[in-house]
């Protein structure tokens, strides 16, 4: 990647190359601020979730203060309807959101990859049956399906994670099936097969490593939607249950005291937006770099 130093190259050509390469680098950095901002926001959120309780040493469940206090140095985000410190609750909400988002996306990617690999690898009748099932899941609006599953399993955080995981597994299955079909037609897979490798070996050694890149983009993109879906379910009372705080249920509780304590309706929502924005920024940047064809998320 060095500038050509051949004696015969005129000086102005070399200068042109240098200028061109500089411009390229500058434009890449200029094109990436969105992705970098996203990474910073997510790192900050993770830091708040892990270190927050150690820095802001207030119990999120303690009802020691007066109710519905306005923001002040003692309670930077005020107190809620039971006299609990809002900042401590928002900090705890960060770890709830991240935990639900990560677990849900892991569930989605495991189920989705298994179904997608099975359909793409074995093809034929298995493919037809599995993909029609996925099509049925796509026909029901995602949030409606999540509400159904979470509601029928019974409202709790674990069930919300399961519901979100199941709902988004269909999207993972489609992408993994497509990538599997592409990878299976590559020469090195054919070579492995002609050498007598069994199915399991081909899947583990040749298929899965090649699926990692498309999965990474999907995971980033769906982490934001999973967090948003968890907030929505909690808002409706189908996610994290009180007294444990989550951003969605805090917003729901704030609605009853909106005129007296508008700040309660502002901070949790701001937190949700910031985290989702961070993942969207990062996803946008990653997609530009890794795969521009993955397109928009289905919600």
């Amino acid at each position, binding site marked *: 990647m060095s500038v050509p130093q051949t004696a015969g190259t005129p000086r102005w050509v070399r200068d042109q190359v240098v200028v061109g390469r500089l411009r390229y680098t500058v434009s890449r950095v200029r094109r990436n601020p*969105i992705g970098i901002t996203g990474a910073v926001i997510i790192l900050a959120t993770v830091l708040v979730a892990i270190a927050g309780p150690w820095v802001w040493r207030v119990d999120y469940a303690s009802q020691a203060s007066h109710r519905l206090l306005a923001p002040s140095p003692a309670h930077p985000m005020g107190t809620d309807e039971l006299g609990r410190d809002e900042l401590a609750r928002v900090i705890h909400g960060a770890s709830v959101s991240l935990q639900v988002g990560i677990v849900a996306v892991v569930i989605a990617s495991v189920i989705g990859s298994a179904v997608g690999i099975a359909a793409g690898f074995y093809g034929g009748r298995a493919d037809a049956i599995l993909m029609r099932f996925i099509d049925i899941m796509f*026909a*029901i*609006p*995602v*949030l*409606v*399906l999540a*509400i*159904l599953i979470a*509601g*029928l399993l019974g409202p709790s955080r674990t069930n919300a994670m399961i519901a979100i995981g199941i709902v988004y597994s269909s999207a993972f299955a489609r992408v993994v099936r497509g990538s599997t079909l592409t990878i299976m037609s590559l020469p090195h897979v054919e070579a492995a097969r002609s050498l007598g490798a069994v199915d399991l070996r081909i899947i583990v050694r040749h298929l899965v490593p090649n699926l990692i890149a498309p999965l990474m983009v999907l995971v980033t993109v769906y982490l*934001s939607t999973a967090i*948003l879906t968890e*907030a*929505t379910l909690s*808002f*409706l*009372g*189908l996610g994290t249950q009180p007294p444990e705080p989550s951003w*969605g249920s805090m*917003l729901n509780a*704030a*609605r009853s005291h*909106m*005129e007296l304590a*508008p700040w309660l*309706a*502002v901070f949790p*929502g701001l937190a*949700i*937006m910031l985290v*989702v*924005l961070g993942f*969207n*920024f990062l996803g*946008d940047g990653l997609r530009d770099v890794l795969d521009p064809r993955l397109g*928009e998320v*289905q*919600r």
Partner: protein
Amino acid sequence: MGRAMPITAELAVLAVVLSTIVGIPLGVLSAVRPNTVSDFSARVGGLIGLSVPNFWFATLALLVGSLVFHWIPPVTWIPPRQSLSGNLGQMAIPAVAISVYLMAIVMRMTRATMLEVLSLDYIRTARAKGVGGRAVLFRHALRNSLIPVVTVIGFQVGALMGGATVVEVIFGLPGMGYTLIQAIFGRDYPVIEVSALYLAAVFVFINLLVDLLYGVLDPRIEQG
């Protein structure tokens, strides 16, 4: 149930109309001047629009309405036949709250496809033969970039129905989503089944409409 269906349908239609009439012009504007300040702010604005939870937007809108303008939407449902202005006034905040997300998606999609189409040869040909700048933009470029935009709108109607569910609960509008949530907390299984099936049926039906619309937008596509 028969009372609930038109409410959700009205919400969805209002949201789609709102997001297209705002989203498409913004996307065109952003694509015509790529990599300028206005394009950059439109892109960041689009990402923010994707990230704002609709129930938070609705709550904030209620908050601003009640604190600043001392106005809150009526809590009982007003049918459009009884008072059209009252109905639209009641639906305004819910519809806007749902449409923000779709608006951002329409804007991003329009921008992306317009950028692609504007770089094609026939646009240069049209310019070369002397077609005015605005005519090239709207008659040649926009029309051909609309198909992916329409696809995305059809695809996102599912998100719209989910959004309608949440917003109906917030504003106490007795639509399908509200019915579904009530039924889930009441463990009323027949109502759960019917309302979920209805929402899925509407979603599938709208996607059928979108497929039929392709033929109108691009006469080369024939209906099979």
